């Protein structure tokens, strides 16, 4: 943290990225390397992993130990759950959602991907594009992560060969042509030796591109938010029981997308009533223009009946209001999906119930093949289904809006979250 500057800190952007990888591809080493080379590791943390590396009889300090969490994970040497890590450079603060890459942890990858701006995918330069590479890329495209960075790792083991690198790039381009990926970068690295992670490699003069850290610090993320479609789900109605605020009605929530300002004509869903925004405020301070992902409180020019779960939108730009629609789901529970079964559904901050009307197809996430005959949807499966909800939801397609286009399904008996859904 030697370059720390207070003014700089106030202007930092937040970037969330996800890393998927399997046991041997060097993911934990890469994260350890990022933290270590950017001087984010503290003495007490380093001492702890030095001790444990010694106990295990390793010759060098195993940076991957930095990302170990739970007892069972340390015992088995794997990541079971999503672990969140934090580090900052003078430019950005980073949140890493570190997820296991094996097929049995697809649900964890989906969880980590749901809020990420960037996905890091590791490919072993010796092995090239494998099933798991396809799987990780597919999840990134399914979850609409705006930026993808393909780290071709272990370049030290292929003699830093440009040819080996180009071969993997070509393989990946071939496979990814079937996927919906907007922005992709390829990097030749060695996480173990540190080539092109934080410091530019001296071993690959043929590579003129950026290091991983440079990309993470400079990828353009400010246009990732949707500032066009105004969507404000009312989370909480503020009615102070104090005499000086007797007539105050504030509609509190987090702006999902779009820009709101005083004077805007708005429409309230589901009632369809119109109003004009009087103030957009937080803690008594007026905000001139509010945008995603701000949490604010709005007041309106007239008394309208609004309660939690309603949505404030612009008059000429309304979301879909329907009860029956298709959803791509990732199933996350040991109990299988029941065709015809009823589940609780949560969309923005609204709760409803739904019935599973149809299972359209299941996707083999290693080959991307659609299977219309396989209706057994179990843990980690990805499928397209059709559902009907008890009340209309106000939604956009997930492609258009990640936050009004997503739902979770909840088992009404166990209360567990059983599926993540993206509205088609």
């Amino acid at each position, binding site marked *: 943290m030697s370059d720390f500057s207070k003014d700089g800190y106030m202007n930092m952007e937040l970037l969330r990225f996800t890393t998927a990888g399997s046991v041997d591809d060097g993911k934990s080493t890469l994260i350890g390397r990022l933290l270590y080379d950017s001087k984010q590791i503290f003495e007490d943390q380093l001492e702890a992993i030095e001790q444990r590396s010694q106990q295990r009889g390793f010759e060098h300090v195993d940076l991957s130990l930095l990302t170990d*969490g*739970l007892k069972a994970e340390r015992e088995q040497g794997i990541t079971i759950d999503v672990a969140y890590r934090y580090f900052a450079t003078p430019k950005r603060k980073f949140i890493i959602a570190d997820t296991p890459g094996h097929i049995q942890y697809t649900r964890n990858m989906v*969880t980590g991907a749901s809020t990420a701006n960037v996905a890091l995918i590791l490919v072993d330069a010796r092995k090239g594009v494998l099933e798991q590479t396809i799987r990780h890329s597919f999840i990134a495209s399914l979850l609409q992560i705006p930026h993808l960075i393909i780290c071709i790792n272990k370049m030290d083991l292929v003699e830093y060969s440009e040819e080996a690198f180009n071969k993997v790039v070509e393989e990946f381009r071939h496979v990814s042509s079937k996927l919906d990926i907007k922005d992709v970068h390829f990097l030749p690295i060695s996480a173990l030796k540190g080539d092109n992670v934080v410091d530019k490699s001296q071993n690959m003069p043929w590579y003129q591109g950026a290091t991983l850290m440079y990309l993470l610090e400079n990828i353009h993320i400010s246009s990732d938010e949707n500032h066009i479609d105004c969507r404000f789900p009312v989370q*909480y109605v503020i009615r102070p029981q104090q005499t000086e605020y007797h007539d105050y009605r*504030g509609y509190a929530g987090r702006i999902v997308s779009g820009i709101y300002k005083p004077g805007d004509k708005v429409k309230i869903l589901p009632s369809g009533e119109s109003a004009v925004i009087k103030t957009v405020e937080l803690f*008594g301070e007026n905000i001139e223009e509010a945008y995603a992902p701000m*949490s604010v409180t709005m007041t309106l020019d007239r008394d309208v009946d609004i309660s939690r779960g309603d949505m404030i939108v612009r008059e000429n730009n309304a979301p879909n209001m329907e009860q029956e629609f298709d959803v791509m789901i990732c199933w996350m529970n040991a109990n299988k999906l029941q065709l015809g079964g009823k589940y609780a559904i949560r969309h923005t901050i609204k709760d409803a119930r739904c019935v599973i009307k149809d299972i359209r197809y299941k996707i083999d996430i290693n080959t991307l093949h659609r299977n219309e005959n396989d209706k057994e949807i179990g843990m980690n499966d990805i499928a397209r289904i059709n559902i009907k909800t008890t009340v209309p939801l106000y939604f956009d397609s997930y492609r258009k809006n990640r*936050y009004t286009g*997503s739902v979770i399904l909840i088992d009404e008996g166990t209360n567990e*979250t059983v599926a993540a859904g993206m509205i088609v």
Partner: protein
Amino acid sequence: MILYHLNHLRELEAEAIYVIREAASQFERPAMLFSGGKDSIVMTHLARKAFYPARIPFPLLHIDTGHNFPETITFRDKMVEEIGARLEVRYVQDSIDKGRAREEKGPNASRNVLQTITLLDALEELKIDAAMGGARRDEEKARAKERFFSHRDEFGQWDPKNQRPELWMLLNGRKHIGEHFRVFPLSNWTEMDVWMYIQLENIPIPEIYFTHERDVVDRDGMLLAYSEYITLKETEKVEKKIVRFRTIGDMTCTGAVESPASSLSEIIDEIAASRTTERGTRQDDKRSETAMEDRKKAGYF
């Protein structure tokens, strides 16, 4: 479009306010745990912002070990009065008197672990179904795996291997009778974020975070504040030092750091230059490699 981009502190603020409003909406009897430390002070500030101009619509709950720094209690009472919040206090001493908890023995005795008993009893007595806490994922490796909405069974236990997946900002607070949730609005904050936010928002904090002269005991390299709750070992002696606290917990397990920092700005410079984590000043985490994970499974924060 750079104009429409929040800086990271404001984004964390927005996220935390969203989580607090969700907890207030999804649960019948939420409460916010208040320890007098900087994280719970920041969380309380965010709760005020979330519901302003209304008052905070849930009580603050303090589990008092009886081994608090007196400055913390003075600060707490003043703050509660100023913001018009409701405060509930439950005492570890009462749990001990009732025979529900047994005091640890020896020079390293602490009431840190006993708090869990008093906390779980208080949640049951007050019928609290969601307890918000200021824990952060960057603090400790077991906390790195926490959810915003973290489920607890009817014994108050955490099952880290069977957590509900948490996607997008969709928070699932459904539960059976007798179960409750822990809610962590500051999950994505780091120590530096907390300090920078305190400065940004000009939030008052207890004076022991700033430099002062104090009687301390050097125990295994950790400077513990000398008080009637500390039993000296034979080789130990009480010394006067210029110190401040980086975290505030129990007097028996919170170490001081030698520091001349007398303002927020100086504290921030000191942390930026620091080469150890703040939990490095906590003896409660040093008991074993899995000290935090084990305590959390049993119902600790």
